[in-house]
């Protein structure tokens, strides 16, 4: 903090991707025995900057110095040679090998007499030494797969130590850790600091920066927005930097009048991160679900719909005027669910568009006897959706879905669910990977659906989309409700504050 010896210096780093300026002249320094926090929201440029430092991307401009010597890197291997190590969110390791073998994976100990034999004893002894340095009691001989995620991370750190790394980068290391594991990790990082390593700590959780780091820098939209010593700032100073300018978004004409309750979720626990999530959606309402990556948004939807096991809580639907509990597996039959990744579980790529559109509602086209499908009806219905949603395909309903553009594929998936005429629609990143025109059309479609009475739960990582479409926004933070925002409060700053965890409103 009092001007530590500079270990790493990045200066004026620029990087463009086709059509995007990802980094615009970013400079920063990391010193020996210091921890620099690198903060910013999704898409601020953190990953790009670190991928440049890790040798994965080559910068278009700027220079990198290690020990005041300019270095040029062409690969991840080059970065390792310069003593730069990455600790990933999800550690990469060999599950069936021991801890010691994982630590020395790139430079095995061999028997001095018989160099083609691996010297396990020496490896275990050395592994013990590095683990002790980190103050960890992990047994070098235990199998990697028997360790918890948090402990695997510590092994990965020991590997970095053993490789002689001087600069250690942590990429969102706590996002899947329990509270106790997090404390252990912080102690380990502290011992690394005392070993004189330069540490870069990427996160979007402010508390962690304030607790752990000596200095911080904030990236916003590819630019360095500010930074300094952690002891000189308050939390809200940092929040202001992270949020950036308030993007002017035309707020939707939010409707106060609520329809009847379409779905009520009570005290849902699932996927180890979701705790006590309760909310209601009303007919004709667009409920936004906002949160940072790892906050549990997709997990919540999957648990409600019974696609992942639910550990507690219940889901209620109106049955003749009364709310009644419904088993999650059954709920999916009443709903539409546009999934986050259409290639994984949305589209039937090799099938024609018409078979995609009728996949969720085959029951409508099936004869009572012998279960024959009425293909003529299927084609007719598909043609209607192609018209209504203005899906452009080469050969009408006969084009294979994989031949369509991303935006049109997404519309096919909407058509697939609308064909079921669901009262409730779950939309997870409905405009991801589609062009601007299609984005606007889909936004319009979502509004129309709500106006016609559908209850819509909308997940989006784009704040503009959240602000312009939602009637209310439920903010999740680390698997818990951080707040329910309504009306004029739905704006960039409020959503970000709640998501990062500066303040906690009553849900």
């Amino acid at each position, binding site marked *: 903090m009092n001007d530590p010896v500079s270990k790493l210096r990045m200066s004026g780093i620029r990087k463009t991707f086709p059509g995007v300026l990802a980094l615009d002249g970013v400079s920063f320094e990391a010193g020996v025995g210091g921890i620099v926090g690198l903060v910013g929201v999704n898409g601020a440029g953190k990953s790009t900057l670190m991928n440049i430092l890790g040798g994965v991307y080559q910068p278009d401009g700027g220079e990198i110095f290690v020990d005041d010597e300019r270095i040029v890197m062409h690969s991840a291997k080059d970065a390792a040679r310069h003593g730069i190590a990455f600790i990933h969110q999800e550690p990469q390791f060999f599950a069936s090998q021991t801890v010691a073998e994982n630590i020395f994976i790139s430079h095995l100990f061999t028997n001095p007499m018989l160099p083609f034999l691996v010297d396990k004893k020496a490896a275990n002894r050395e592994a013990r030494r590095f683990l002790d340095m980190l103050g960890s009691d992990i047994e070098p001989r235990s199998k990697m797969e028997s360790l918890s995620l948090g402990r695997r991370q510590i092994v990965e750190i020991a590997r970095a130590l053993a490789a002689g790394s001087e600069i250690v980068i942590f990429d969102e290391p706590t996002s899947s850790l329990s509270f106790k594991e997090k404390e252990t990790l912080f102690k380990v990082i502290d011992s690394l600091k005392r070993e004189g390593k330069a540490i870069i700590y990427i996160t979007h959780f402010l508390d962690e920066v304030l607790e752990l780091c000596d200095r911080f820098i904030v990236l916003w939209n590819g630019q360095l927005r500010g930074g300094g010593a952690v002891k000189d700032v308050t939390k809200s100073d940092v929040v202001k930097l992270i949020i950036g300018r308030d993007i002017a978004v035309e707020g939707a004409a939010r409707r106060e009048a609520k329809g009847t309750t379409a779905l009520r979720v009570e005290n849902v626990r699932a996927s180890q991160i979701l705790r006590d999530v309760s909310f209601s959606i009303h007919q004709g309402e667009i409920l936004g679900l906002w949160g940072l990556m790892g906050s549990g948004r997709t997990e919540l939807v999957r648990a409600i719909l019974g*696609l992942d096991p639910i550990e507690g809580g219940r889901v209620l639907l109106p049955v003749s005027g009364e709310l009644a509990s419904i088993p999650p597996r059954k709920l999916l039959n009443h709903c539409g669910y546009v999934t986050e990744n259409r290639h994984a*579980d949305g589209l039937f790529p090799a099938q024609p568009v018409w078979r995609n559109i009728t996949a969720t509602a085959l029951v409508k086209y099936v004869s009572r006897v012998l*279960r024959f499908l009425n293909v003529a009806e299927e084609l007719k219905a598909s043609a209607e959706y192609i018209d209504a949603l203005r899906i452009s395909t080469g050969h009408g309903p006969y084009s294979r879905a994989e031949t369509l553009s991303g935006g049109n594929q997404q519309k096919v998936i909407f058509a697939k669910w609308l064909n079921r005429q669901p009262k409730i629609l779950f939309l997870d990143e409905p405009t991801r990977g589609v062009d601007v025109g299609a984005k606007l059309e889909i936004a319009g479609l979502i509004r129309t659906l709500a106006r016609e009475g559908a209850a819509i739960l909308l997940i989006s990582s784009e704040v503009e989309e959240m602000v312009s479409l939602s009637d209310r926004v439920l903010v999740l933070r680390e698997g818990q409700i951080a707040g329910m925002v309504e009306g004029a409060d739905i704006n960039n700053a409020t959503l970000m504050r709640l998501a990062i965890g500066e303040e906690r409103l009553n849900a």
Partner: protein
Amino acid sequence: MTVPHFMRLGNILNILEQLSILGFMSIGMTFVMVSGGIDLSTYTIVSAGSVVGAAAMVSGYSPVVGCALMAAVGLIFGSINGVAIAFGQMIPFIVTLSTMVVAQGFAIWFTHAQSISGLPDSYIDVVSGKVFGVVSIPALLIIVVALVSGIILGKTEYGRWLYLTGTNEAAARISGIPVRLTKFLAYVFSGLMAGFTAIVLTAMVGTATTAMVRDERLMDVIATTVIGGASLSGGSGSVLGTMSGLLFITVLGNSFNLLGVSPFVAIVIKGAVLVAVIGLDVLRSR
């Protein structure tokens, strides 16, 4: 180059009979491949069904009981495959490879490696006989089975479930399709087709042995289905396509036979054709 005797009536009937042996198994394989899996076990299930049914008939049960037993053995092995793959979520290749060995072992254990002859004439005469003295029963049977299964795959809800499951299982599940039931039934059907093969083949051969179908027939079945348009990655194929593939493979084998090509060389050539077709399948799906 012309093949002598190719168009003779005797040879055509010969081809039809061969068609029926491969045909049932290939149709079963088509259902399984459309669902995104593979079934390597059918050809040894044929032996298992054959010896059980034959043993029953030889010890005095009626041909109807014998045939029912052959079909039942097919259904049982098919269900084992189906449960393991659809509900146990095990890999089709490994499951059916194991079933293949189990069915073979079962047949050998059941018969002490002896063949069973002395089948009732009523069974042999009816099943391998001819309708109106022209069309053989096996040929007629394969035509009927092809028609019915073609309609199931092409026209019914279950057929659509198979295509959607084979194209994208995760999307099918979320779309509300009973993915597990769909896959289970595909293997059960494939097992039943092995049972049908046993019924026809045992009558045609006149004895039940532990090796009713030669090993290389498995390759023929896969080649037939893939040439007919099925993809090893699932989601495509049709019964009509498989029947054309069947014609191609059978005529190819028959031509080698008439040309006097060594059967071993023929196997090599057919193997090469299979690899080429699978290669095309990979290129096509890129």
